[in-house]
């Protein structure tokens, strides 16, 4: 145990203080900051993509005015009946769910006669909702706003707007947007981290072989300890870097959110409750926990494979070529996950999300986008753990044979022999 912690600590500290890691982390943080600005800009542009909107108004005058207001941004289709309340007609609802319209907007009169709105998107970006609010406010001011006293102004500004996402997966529009964006971002992070740190482990092994430090080390510690120390040290390093990136991303989200909130507050304080700060607060902690769990599972699954490959290679160049077959499942897992974002409950994805090497990414995607039965999560984590256990045993065997071997790479037959040898 002591040996293991000494090995892991050296691995961790020497990499943490290396120029490569520091520069990589700084660029990563800068990248996250840049990305958060770009995504902010991007969502302004996203208004240009015309959303088709089914409109139901309380009366002809208001309906026409609304259609007028929204015409620039939406493809408006006025429905041939009047609204008496916020409820959506079943037929209209199914039209929206089935994709005939992207959203439905229902304008109705409250008991006091003031205008109120109900918005039913099927997929939604919160920023898009913001621009909708501005448009609606203009209508409210034009139709309802009478007098100049303070309370009238306030009542007009605080016009009621309820947003109900018709996509059954999400409780609210902001959650829908957040979930998809977040899952995509986290998935990318997972993919990069698993590949990058897995390859770190492999090249670290070869490095020790090629500079012959291995000769000294092997006289003092067991190959299995060397392997475990390296994987644990680099795993800890990976978590550190992810923590730093997470911190950067989190604070950028808060900053951007606060900025949005303050700019909206000047117009309408109440609907601002639907914007980013609240959204961040609702990032489920469970999702972050799952991210860490599945990262660790993915990292350990691949790192042990890469360590085995590293032990058999004598030059760093060799590792890159022999890593190939093992990088393949990561790419498959990533592709499947991207598709699964749209339809996470498809049987293919359900079954694939139980398979080790693929499950860390795919199961994470499913957990983040749909309700996954607990047994499936359990089976997927369990199988991954079994896989890691077996892979570690095999890698340790390869290590024994490979670490003191230079020159000619082992033939597949010799590798098999090494794997079968008693440890």
């Amino acid at each position, binding site marked *: 145990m002591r040996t293991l912690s*000494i090995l892991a600590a050296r691995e961790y500290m020497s990499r943490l203080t290396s120029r490569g890691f520091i520069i990589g982390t700084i660029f990563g943080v800068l990248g996250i900051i840049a990305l958060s600005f770009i995504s902010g800009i991007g969502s302004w542009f996203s208004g240009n993509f015309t959303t088709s909107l089914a409109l139901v108004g309380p009366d002809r005058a208001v309906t026409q005015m609304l259609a007028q207001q929204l015409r620039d941004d939406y493809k408006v289709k006025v429905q041939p009946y009047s609204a008496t309340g916020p409820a959506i007609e079943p037929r209209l609802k199914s039209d929206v769910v089935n994709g005939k319209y992207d959203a439905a907007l229902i304008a109705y009169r409250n008991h006091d006669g003031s205008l109120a709105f109900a918005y039913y998107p099927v997929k939604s970006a919160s920023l898009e909702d913001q621009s909708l609010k501005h448009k609606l406010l203009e209508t409210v001011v034009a139709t309802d706003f009478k007098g100049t006293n303070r309370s009238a102004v306030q009542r007009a500004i605080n016009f009621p707007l309820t947003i109900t996402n018709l996509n059954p997966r999400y409780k609210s529009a902001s959650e829908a947007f957040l979930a998809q964006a977040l899952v995509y971002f986290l998935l990318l992070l997972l993919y990069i981290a698993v590949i990058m740190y897995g390859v770190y482990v492999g090249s670290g092994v070869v490095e020790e072989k090629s500079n*012959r430090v291995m000769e*000294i080390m092997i*006289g003092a510690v067991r190959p299995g300890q060397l392997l475990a120390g390296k994987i644990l040290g680099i795993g800890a390093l990976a978590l550190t870097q992810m923590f730093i990136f997470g911190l950067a991303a989190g604070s950028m989200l808060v900053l951007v959110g606060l900025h949005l909130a303050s700019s909206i507050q000047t117009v309408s304080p109440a609907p601002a409750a639907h914007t980013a700060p609240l959204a961040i607060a609702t990032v489920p902690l469970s999702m972050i926990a799952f991210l860490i769990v599945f990262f660790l599972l993915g990292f350990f699954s691949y790192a042990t494979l890469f360590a085995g490959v590293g032990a058999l290679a004598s030059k760093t160049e060799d590792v890159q070529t022999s890593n190939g077959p093992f990088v393949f499942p990561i790419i498959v897992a990533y592709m499947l996950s991207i598709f699964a974002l749209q339809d996470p409950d498809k049987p293919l994805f359900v079954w694939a999300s139980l398979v080790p090497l693929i499950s860390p990414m795919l199961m994470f995607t499913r957990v983040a986008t749909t309700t996954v039965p607990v047994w499936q999560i359990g089976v997927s984590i369990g199988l991954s753990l079994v896989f890691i256990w077996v892979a570690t045993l095999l890698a340790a065997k390869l290590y024994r044979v490979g670490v003191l071997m230079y020159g000619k790479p082992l033939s597949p037959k010799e590798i098999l022999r090494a794997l079968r040898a008693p440890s």
Partner: protein
Amino acid sequence: MLEVNQVSKAFRNVKAVSELSFYAREGRVIGLLGPNGAGKTTTIRMILDILQPDTGEVRWDGRRVDAQLRQTFGYLPEERGLYPKMKITEQLLFFGRLHGMDGADARKRIAELFESFNLTDKLKSTPVELSKGNQQKVQFIAAILHRPPLLILDEPFSGFDPINVEVVKDTVRGLVAGGTAVVLSSHRMEQVEELCEDICIIDRSFPVVKGNLREIKQTWPNRFVRMTRLPNMSFLDQFPGAVTQPSTDSVAEIKLPANTVPADVLRAAVSAGPVDLFEVVEPSLNDIYLHYVRPEDGVT
């Protein structure tokens, strides 16, 4: 005491070590000699429990060598290597702790050893900033840092200049005086001869000679004679099997077969001319080595 008992190891069908036995005692140096590929490194790896012998066993003080035990041993591998960008003092601290030292003790010992190896001004350097000789010193320090009871040195003198060879030899002598058992594998016969009391020569996986070096020399069947070179050395013709070996102009070196008495040679020489020098010398380790180790192309 290290006991290597009848160990054999084969890789696939190639024998690397065959039924090798020897002891390394506290306070003594045993030289493990043999041509390249004879099985020295495999033997060392079996002592260190890196490889398991197919048959036979390795014991230290009667106990089978395991991971915990070999952690106390010191090992200077032939293939040297350090982490290129890690400060040498940090590396030594790391190696020391892997061998079970606590940090404070290791630091103190590093400072002492740096002083005796003249490295004090290099405390903050990384290996890439050091000369090859200094890197070798650091590597040597790594092997002896934790005061190992058994020290295994594989070609310890390679890469050292003559002055540093002396430093290393003195250090080894100091450790041996302190009770360390040393296994020394080297091709440098002079140094092995100077340091080793016991030797074990292996050739093509088989031990060909082993034992106390002095005894081997004393019971050596051939005698070597150094004597004044006479203008006419033909008196040697009466001693069949006597061979004049290449030597200097003034001194002749003669190898005598086992049944020839040196005194008879002396009498014959005196009658052949003025002899200022006549001495019977023991065989050098080099002679012994060359006698036992068959040349590469001499396979029968």
